[in-house]
C-alpha cells in the first residue's frame, strides 16, 4: 500500500516540477576542453543560481534541475576566459560553448590586518600568547613553541632539524653558542619569536641552494631595545654553605648588541656547558687537525662515574662571557665573543685495579685526593660580509688553558703528583663563497698553531732501578711539549641544479709537528735527564692532497648515497736526537655506502658499509719512553702505524601507529687490522707498553633492538631494549700473545603511566653484564651492574610544580662485595601571580649517600672506583628580571 502511495506521490511531483537536464561541452578557441569551468542555471535577470555543474576533464557538464520557469539563464565561467551567458528555454537540451581567453582580473581584498605571515615563510609567534606564569627566560618559551624542540644539550630544532641561525634583532651575535642568549634574555623583554623557514644564512646562495633548515630571530619589545636589560639569580644553602648566582646584562641597539654574563656556583653545576659550540662539524675538523686539547701526560684519575655530574662535581666555578656585535656598514659586521672561566675542582676517590696476567694476578690500590685549578680564556674575533654577491667570513680564534692539577695518592706509600697541562691554540678560518653560472664556488682556508707545553712531577723518586741506577732521588719529572702547525685549504664546486646531487671538493692539508719529551730526575733541586732512551725529539710533516666526491640517488622506495673520498698522503718524520729519518706515502680510498629501502609504510630496511685506511699520528713513533701517568711508561719503537677497518651494519624497523607498536632490531659488524701490536709488561706497579710490528685484528659484532607498545586502556607505555655484543682483540702480555674475547649483555625496560593530567610517573631500569676471557683463563671474568630510576611529577596548580625522583644503582664484581646505592631528590617551583620573582626549592641527595662506585672491565684489567658524592643539600633560589 505504501509503495503505491509513494508512486502516486512521485507522479504528482513529476507533473508539477518536471526534471530537466542540460548537457554539453566547453572548449577553448582551439577546441581543447576546459576543465573546472562552472556552468550555472539561474532565473532570468537574477544573480541567484538554481543549479550548477563543474566541467570534467573532457570539458563536459550536465545540469539537472526542477523548476517551473519557462526559460532560464545558462552561464559559463572559467578562470582566464570571458564569461558567457544566454537565455534558454527550460527544456532538456544540449549546449556547447567555446570560450575566448581573457585574463581574469581579481581585486585584492583585505578585511582585517594582514595575517602574520609572509611569502618568505616567516612565522611570528607573539610571546605574550605563549607565555606561561612559570617562564623566566626566552628559552622557556621557545621550547614550547609549536614545531620547536630543545635537546638536553641546548640545541634548538625546528621540525626535527637543528636551526641554522639564532638571530637577535636580525643580527647573529652568538653564532652557534646561542645558549648564552637562550638562557639569559628575560621572557618579558621579547615581543616576538620569528621562525624563518627554509632560511639560507648565506645570502649568495639564496636563489640557488634550497635550505631545509630554519633560523630563529628574537624581536624585542621597543622598551627593551634602548636600555640595558638583564636577569639576576640568587641561590643559597646554609649548611653546607653553598651559593648559585647569576647576573646577565644585555643591550640590543642597531649599532651595537651585547650580552655579558657572569655566573658563579659551588653547587655542582657545570656552567661551561653553555659556552660549548653546537656545531659538530667544526669540532670534527679540529680533531682531525690536532686542534683540541689532548693531554700528553696525566694524573692517574679514575674515569667519571656513571651518574649525573651534579652529584659528584665539587666545584667552585666562575664563568664570565662577553659577546659583542657591531655592524660596520650594510655589508660588513665585526663580532667579539670572549669567555673566561675560573674553576677550582676537587675529588676524592679510591680505586682498586686488578690485572690478570698469564703468570699471576696482581692488584693496585690507590686512594686519591685530587684538585685542579683551571683558568680558561677563549676569544673569537669575526669579520663577516653577507651580501647577495658574495659571502665572506673570517674568524680569528685564540684559546688558552692555564691549568694545574695536583694529586696526593696513597698506594702503599704516598705519592704526590703535580701536573701542569696548559694548552694554547691560535687559528684563522677564512671562507669565501661566490656564484658562477653553473655552479657554486667555495674557497676555504684554515690555519692554526697549537702548543701543549706540559709537565708531570712525581714525588718521591720512583723506579730507581730503571731511571737512576738504584740511587735514591727526589722527584721524577716528565716534560712533554707538542707544537703543531696545520693548514687546510680547499675549493669545492656544487652543481646548481640536478636530480642526482653531486659535490666535488679538491684540497690540500699540511700538518707540521714537533714533539719533545724528556724524562728527568730531580735531586736537591737539580734536574737531570735520565737517558736518551727516555727522550724524544721528533719532527713530523704530513702532506695530504684530497678529493672528495659524493653522489646521492633517490627514488620512491630507495635512497642510495655514495661518498668516495680519495687522498694521497705523504709523511716524513725525523728523530733529531737519533738522527733517523723515515717516511711513508700512500694513496687511500675510503668509500661509504648507505642504502635505505622502504618495504611498505610499516617496514623498512637500512644497510650501510664503509671502509677506511689511514696512518697513525706522531704519538705512534715515539721511540723513547714516556711516563704517561706515574705508573705507565710506554714507547713505540716501531714504524708508523697503519690501520684498515671495515664496517657493515643492517637494521630492520617496524612501526604501526594504529596498534601503537614499535620494533627495531639491527646488527653491526666491524673488523679492523693494525700493523702494530702493543706489548704489556709489568715491573712491579709500573706498566710498560711497547709497540711491535705484527699484524693483528680486532673483531666486534653487536646485535641490539628495541620494542615499545602503548596500552590504551591503562594509559601506559611499556618498552624493552636489549643489546648483545661480542668480539675479540689481541695483545702481547709478558711476551705471550693473548687473545681476549669480550661479551656484554644489556637488557632494559621502561614504563610510563599517566594517572591523571596532574600526576604522571616514569620508570626505567637497565641491567648490564660484561664478560672477558682470554685463552689462558679457565673461566671468564664478569662484572654486573644495574640501575633503576623513578620519577613522579605532580602539578597541583599551574603556578606550582612538584617533582620527586629516586634512583637505585647496583654493582657486583669479583673482588669487592656487591653494593647498592640510593639517591632521591625533590624539586619545587612556584611563581606568584603578577610577580617578577620566582622561587625554587631543590633538595638533592635526600638519603645523604656519601659514596658511589663504578666497576669497569676491559680485557685483562678490572677496576672498581669509589667516589665521594656531594652530601645532602637544600638550595633555595630566587630569580628575577630587570
Amino acid at each position: 500500500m505504501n509503495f503505491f502511495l509513494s508512486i502516486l506521490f512521485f507522479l504528482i511531483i513529476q507533473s508539477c516540477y518536471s526534471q530537466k537536464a542540460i548537457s554539453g561541452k566547453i572548449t577553448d578557441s582551439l577546441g581543447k576542453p576546459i576543465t573546472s569551468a562552472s556552468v550555472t542555471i539561474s532565473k532570468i535577470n537574477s544573480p541567484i543560481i538554481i543549479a550548477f555543474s563543474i566541467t570534467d576533464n573532457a570539458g563536459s557538464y550536465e545540469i539537472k534541475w526542477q523548476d517551473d520557469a519557462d526559460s532560464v539563464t545558462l552561464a559559463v565561467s572559467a578562470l582566464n576566459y570571458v564569461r558567457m551567458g544566454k537565455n534558454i528555454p527550460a527544456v532538456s537540451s544540449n549546449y556547447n560553448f567555446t570560450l575566448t581567453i581573457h585574463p581574469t582580473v581579481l581585486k585584492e581584498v583585505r578585511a582585517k590586518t594582514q595575517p602574520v605571515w609572509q611569502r618568505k615563510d616567516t612565522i611570528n609567534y607573539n610571546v605574550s600568547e605563549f607565555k606561561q606564569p612559570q617562564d623566566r627566560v626566552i628559552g622557556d618559551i621557545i621550547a614550547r613553541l609549536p614545531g620547536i624542540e630543545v635537546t638536553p644539550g641546548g640545541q634548538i630544532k625546528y621540525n626535527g632539524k637543528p636551526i641554522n641561525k639564532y638571530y637577535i634583532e636580525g643580527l647573529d651575535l652568538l653564532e652557534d653558542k646561542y645558549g648564552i642568549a637562550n638562557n639569559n634574555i628575560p621572557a618579558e623583554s621579547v615581543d616576538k619569536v620569528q621562525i624563518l623557514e627554509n632560511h639560507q644564512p648565506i645570502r649568495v646562495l639564496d636563489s640557488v641552494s634550497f635550505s631545509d633548515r630554519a633560523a630563529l630571530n628574537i624581536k624585542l619589545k621597543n622598551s627593551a631595545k634602548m636600555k640595558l636589560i638583564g636577569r639576576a639569580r640568587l641561590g643559597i644553602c646554609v649548611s653546607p654553605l653553598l651559593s648559585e648566582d647569576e647576573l646577565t646584562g644585555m643591550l640590543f641597539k642597531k649599532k651595537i648588541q651585547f650580552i655579558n654574563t657572569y655566573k658563579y656556583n659551588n653547587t655542582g653545576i657545570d656552567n661551561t656547558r653553555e659556552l660549548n659550540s653546537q656545531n659538530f662539524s667544526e669540532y670534527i675538523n679540529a680533531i682531525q687537525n690536532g686542534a683540541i686539547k689532548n693531554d700528553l701526560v696525566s694524573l692517574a684519575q679514575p674515569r667519571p662515574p656513571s651518574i649525573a655530574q651534579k652529584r659528584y662535581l665539587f666545584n667552585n666555578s666562575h664563568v664570565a662571557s662577553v659577546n659583542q656585535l657591531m655592524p660596520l656598514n650594510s655589508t660588513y659586521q665585526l663580532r667579539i665573543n670572549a669567555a673566561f672561566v675560573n674553576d677550582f675542582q676537587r675529588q676524592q676517590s679510591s680505586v682498586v685495579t686488578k690485572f690478570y696476567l698469564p703468570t699471576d694476578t696482581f692488584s693496585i690500590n690507590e686512594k686519591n685526593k685530587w684538585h685542579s685549578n683551571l683558568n680558561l680564556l677563549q676569544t673569537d674575533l669575526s669579520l663577516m660580509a653577507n651580501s647577495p654577491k658574495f659571502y665572506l667570513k673570517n674568524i680569528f680564534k685564540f684559546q688558552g688553558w692555564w691549568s694545574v692539577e695536583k694529586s696526593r695518592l696513597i698506594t702503599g706509600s704516598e705519592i704526590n703528583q703535580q701536573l701542569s697541562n696548559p694548552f694554547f691554540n691560535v687559528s684563522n678560518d677564512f671562507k669565501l663563497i661566490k656564484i658562477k653560472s653553473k655552479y657554486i664556488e667555495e674557497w676555504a682556508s684554515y690555519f692554526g698553531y697549537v702548543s701543549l707545553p706540559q709537565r708531570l712531577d712525581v714525588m718521591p723518586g720512583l723506579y730507581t732501578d730503571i731511571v737512576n741506577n738504584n740511587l735514591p732521588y727526589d722527584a721524577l719529572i716528565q716534560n712533554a711539549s707538542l707544537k703543531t702547525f696545520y693548514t687546510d685549504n680547499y675549493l669545492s664546486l656544487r652543481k646548481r641544479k640536478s636530480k642526482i646531487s653531486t659535490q666535488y671538493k679538491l684540497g690540500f692539508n699540511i700538518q707540521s709537528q714537533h714533539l719533545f719529551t724528556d724524562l728527568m730526575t730531580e735531586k736537591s733541586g737539580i734536574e737531570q735527564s735520565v737517558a736518551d732512551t727516555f727522550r724524544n725529539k721528533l719532527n713530523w710533516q704530513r702532506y695530504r692532497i684530497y678529493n672528495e666526491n659524493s653522489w646521492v640517488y633517490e627514488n620512491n622506495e630507495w635512497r642510495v648515497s655514495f661518498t668516495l673520498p680519495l687522498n694521497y698522503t705523504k709523511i716524513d718524520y725525523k728523530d733529531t736526537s737519533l738522527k733517523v729519518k723515515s717516511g711513508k706515502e700512500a694513496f687511500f680510498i675510503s668509500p661509504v655506502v648507505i642504502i635505505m629501502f622502504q618495504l611498505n609504510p610499516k617496514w623498512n630496511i637500512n644497510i650501510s658499509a664503509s671502509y677506511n685506511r689511514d696512518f697513525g699520528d706522531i704519538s705512534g713513533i715515539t721511540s723513547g719512553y714516556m711516563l704517561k701517568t706515574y705508573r705507565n711508561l710506554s714507547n713505540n719503537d716501531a714504524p708508523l702505524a697503519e690501520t684498515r677497518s671495515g664496517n657493515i651494519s643492517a637494521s630492520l624497523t617496524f612501526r604501526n601507529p594504529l596498534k601503537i607498536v614499535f620494533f627495531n632490531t639491527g646488527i653491526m659488524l666491524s673488523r679492523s687490522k693494525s700493523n702494530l701490536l702493543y706489548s704489556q709488561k709489568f715491573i712491579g706497579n709500573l706498566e710498560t707498553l711497547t709497540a711491535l710490528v705484527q699484524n693483528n685484528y680486532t673483531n666486534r659484532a653487536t646485535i641490539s633492538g628495541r620494542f615499545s607498545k602503548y596500552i590504551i586502556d591503562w594509559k601506559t607505555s611499556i618498552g624493552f631494549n636489549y643489546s648483545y655484543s661480542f668480539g675479540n682483540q689481541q695483545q702481547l702480555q709478558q711476551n705471550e700473545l693473548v687473545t681476549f674475547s669480550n661479551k656484554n649483555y644489556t637488557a632494559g625496560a621502561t614504563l610510563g603511566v599517566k594517572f591523571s593530567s596532574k600526576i604522571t610517573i616514569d620508570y626505567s631500569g637497565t641491567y648490564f653484564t660484561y664478560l672477558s676471557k682470554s685463552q689462558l683463563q679457565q673461566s671468564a671474568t664478569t662484572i654486573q651492574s644495574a640501575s633503576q630510576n623513578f620519577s613522579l611529577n605532580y602539578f597541583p596548580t599551574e603556578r606550582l610544580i612538584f617533582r620527586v625522583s629516586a634512583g637505585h644503582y647496583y654493582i657486583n664484581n669479583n673482588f669487592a662485595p656487591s653494593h647498592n646505592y640510593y639517591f632521591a631528590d625533590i624539586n619545587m617551583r612556584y611563581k606568584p601571580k603578577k610577580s617578577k620573582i620566582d622561587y625554587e626549592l631543590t633538595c638533592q641527595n635526600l638519603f645523604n649517600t656519601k659514596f658511589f662506585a663504578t666497576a669497569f672491565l676491559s680485557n685483562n684489567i678490572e677496576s672498581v672506583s669509589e667516589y665521594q658524592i656531594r652530601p645532602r643539600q637544600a638550595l633555595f633560589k630566587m630569580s628575577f628580571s630587570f
Partner: protein
Amino acid sequence: MSYIKGLNKMKIYASLYFLSFHLCTINAQIKFRDTSSLEIFYEFNFVPDSSLPEIKNGDVLVLEIGKISSSCFSLYNKKRQEAFLQDLSMQSAHSEKIVINPDIIKLPTGLQQIFCKIPDQKHTIVFDNVYGFQCYYIDTLNSFQWKIMSDTITILGYVCQKATANFRGRNWIAWFTTALPYDNGPLKFGGLPGLILKLEDIKNNFNFIATTIQKPKETPIIIIDKKGYSKFKRNEIRDMHKKADEDPIGFATTINPNFHVNENPHFTNRQKKRYNPIELE
C-alpha cells in the same frame, strides 16, 4: 680499550636508530611543483572540545590555488614537505636523542592537516602528522551533495550565495561567489561554481571566513611531496588520532622510542588532547 670502542659503536648504533626513524618516513616521492596564482586567508574559529562549546580557538588558514592543484594549511602548523634525509647533517647524525616538547601537544595549535586538491586525478590528498608520525590518505575530490539556496550575503565586497550539504556527520553552510570562478574552499570543501568565502557547520563548532584575497607577488611554489609520509586509509588515521589524543606523549614516545620528553619538570605534564573532529563519520 675495546670497551670504550664498544661504547663508541653503541653511540653509532644509537645514531643508526635515529637514521631509521627518518627512513620510516620515506615514502613515494610523488612531487610536482605548481605556481600559486591566488591566496585566500581564512580566519578559522573552532571548538576544540565539543563538551565545552563556549571555548573557541582561533587559527588562520591559507588556501593557495595553482594551475593544477591547490593547497590548504594552517599558518602555525604549516609543515614543510621537504624530506628529512635531504641533508642528514652532522648534528642530527650525532644526536642520540630526539627530544619532543610535550607542551607543543598541549597548545591550541589549530589544524595539523594539509589538504591538497588535484582536480585532474579527482583527489584530495590529506597530509597529517599524528604527534610526529607523518602519514597521508587520499579522499575523493568534492564528494559533496550541495543544495543551492537563494540567500545571499556580501563578504569582502563579493556577493555570495548560500549552499548547504551534509558531509560526514555535520551539516555545513557554505557561501560562495561566482565572481571568483574557482570551485574551491577551505579544507576539503569545494565543488561549487565559485570560491567559498564563508563556511560553517550549523552547530557553529567550526567557522571559516575569508579575510584576505591576494595575488602572490613572487609567484610562489606549492610543493606537494609525499616523501616522508606513509599512506593509510582515512579511517585508520582517524583511529590513530583518537588513540593518540588520549595520551599524546605516551603515543609519541612509544612510536618513536628515540623521543625523550624534556627533563624539565614542567614539560612532563601529560595532558589529554581535546577531541572534536571535523569529520564525525
